[in-house]
């Protein structure tokens, strides 16, 4: 396959960025999208040009490092992570636009690499259960009904890639935040911090400069792990409940 790539190049956080055009040839259908970019970078290095910087690590769809907007879609046309997207999803001769996540809470570091530490700070605000090492009771002392365990798992699957923010026209982090809140708030172990968790995490989310939710559903469509849009509804409910409880 021969492809034309239009890639966002930006030297650093302060520089202006722009799209640059590259041609790549000899692309196999079995390559992953990132292997296709590897091919481009190998050529660029030999030519003495600066290779395209992009975040990637596990290349198995679980670490959440990879983060490209491909033809306007976070993680590209398939519902998966960029690293698990394969070139068979494209046609010979295609022109592909590759851009970084865009949100003011995710400033560009270089080219396609963005700073997602805002997510870490949201977790730090309350995305945990206080259980100091060694203080844990026997695991079977608290049974968890299977539906609750499954609900928790469904939300715990979030890989923190930020595709939800990238896809949201408002740059909102509602899906990310709600996934963690729902995971922990449904479990009996998470109950003691249920109210502070949602209040503090939502406050941190606001402080980081993420937008609000207009329920366009773009986040859930882009989410490679299939976190449902209702996750946000459940968070809203938790938030309202927490406000009522705290007011009392």
């Amino acid at each position: 396959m021969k492809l034309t790539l239009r890639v966002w190049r930006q030297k650093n956080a302060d520089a202006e960025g722009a799209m640059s055009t590259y041609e790549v040839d000899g692309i196999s259908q079995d390559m992953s999208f990132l292997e296709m970019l590897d091919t481009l970078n190998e050529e660029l290095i030999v030519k003495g040009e600066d290779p395209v910087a992009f975040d990637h690590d596990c290349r198995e769809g679980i670490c959440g490092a990879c983060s490209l907007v491909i033809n306007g879609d976070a993680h590209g046309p398939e519902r998966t992570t960029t690293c698990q997207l394969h070139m068979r999803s494209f046609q010979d001769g295609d022109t592909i636009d590759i851009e970084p996540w865009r949100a003011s809470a995710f400033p560009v570091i270089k080219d396609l690499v963005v700073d997602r530490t805002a997510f870490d700070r949201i977790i730090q605000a309350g995305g945990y259960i206080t259980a100091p090492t060694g203080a844990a009771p026997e695991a079977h002392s608290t049974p968890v009904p299977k539906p609750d365990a499954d609900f928790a798992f469904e939300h715990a699957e979030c890989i923190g890639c930020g595709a939800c923010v990238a896809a949201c026209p408002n740059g909102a982090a509602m899906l990310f935040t709600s996934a963690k809140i729902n995971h922990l708030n449904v479990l009996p172990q998470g109950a003691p911090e249920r109210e502070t968790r949602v209040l503090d995490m939502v406050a941190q989310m606001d402080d980081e400069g993420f937008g609000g939710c207009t329920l366009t559903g773009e986040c859930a469509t882009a989410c490679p792990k299939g976190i449902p849009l209702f996750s946000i509804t459940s968070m809203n409910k938790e938030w309202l409940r927490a406000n009522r409880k705290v007011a009392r």
Partner: protein
Amino acid sequence: MTRTIWDSSLGKKTVMAVSGIVMLLYLVAHMIGNLKIFFGPEEINHYAHWLRTMGGPVLHYEWALWLVRIVLVVAVVAHATSAYQLSRRDIRARPSKYVHKKPSASYATRTMRWGGIILGLFIVWHILDLTTGTVHPGGYEHLHPYQNIIDTFSTWYGNVIYIVAVVALGFHVQHGFWSAAQTLGVGSRSRDRVLKTVGTALAVLLTLGFVAVPVGVMTGLVS
């Protein structure tokens, strides 16, 4: 960290949802009242009079009506203010656009924002036209809505403005009702079909109910 509900984006959304539902309830009542026009001038003019005496004899003349008006103004202002502030936050959160545009992404957002602005402007015109009579095309007569309405819908622009606004309202309600349900945390996977259906039904009902009046005038059914 003490924050009020208003400080939070979720809080503002809640304000929008609650004020939206208040206005929605009002609109249903308003729409039903409007349909009285099909039963002749007596019926609707009498209804206009009743609006001012409702709550009596406990409440003085027009007290209840003013109460409704105040609630509505508060709702509109709260709705618009939070919408404005939230939109500003949203735009700030995504300052640079993608080079590769994808139209579908912001459909709902645009519908709500532009629809909201259209409705806001419409409300101003609507009040100046049929409540105060300031910009009314014919000779506005207080407490005679039957003739006032016919006057408005006898002009082409009256019909255009009204119908455009009502269609915008339909879209706004369709997404807004479901949206409010999510904001208030009553949505869920199992309830989604019901909520979406109710939202769409309300939107269709309100659109048809409101549009019926200008159409009635235009077709001569009401004259």
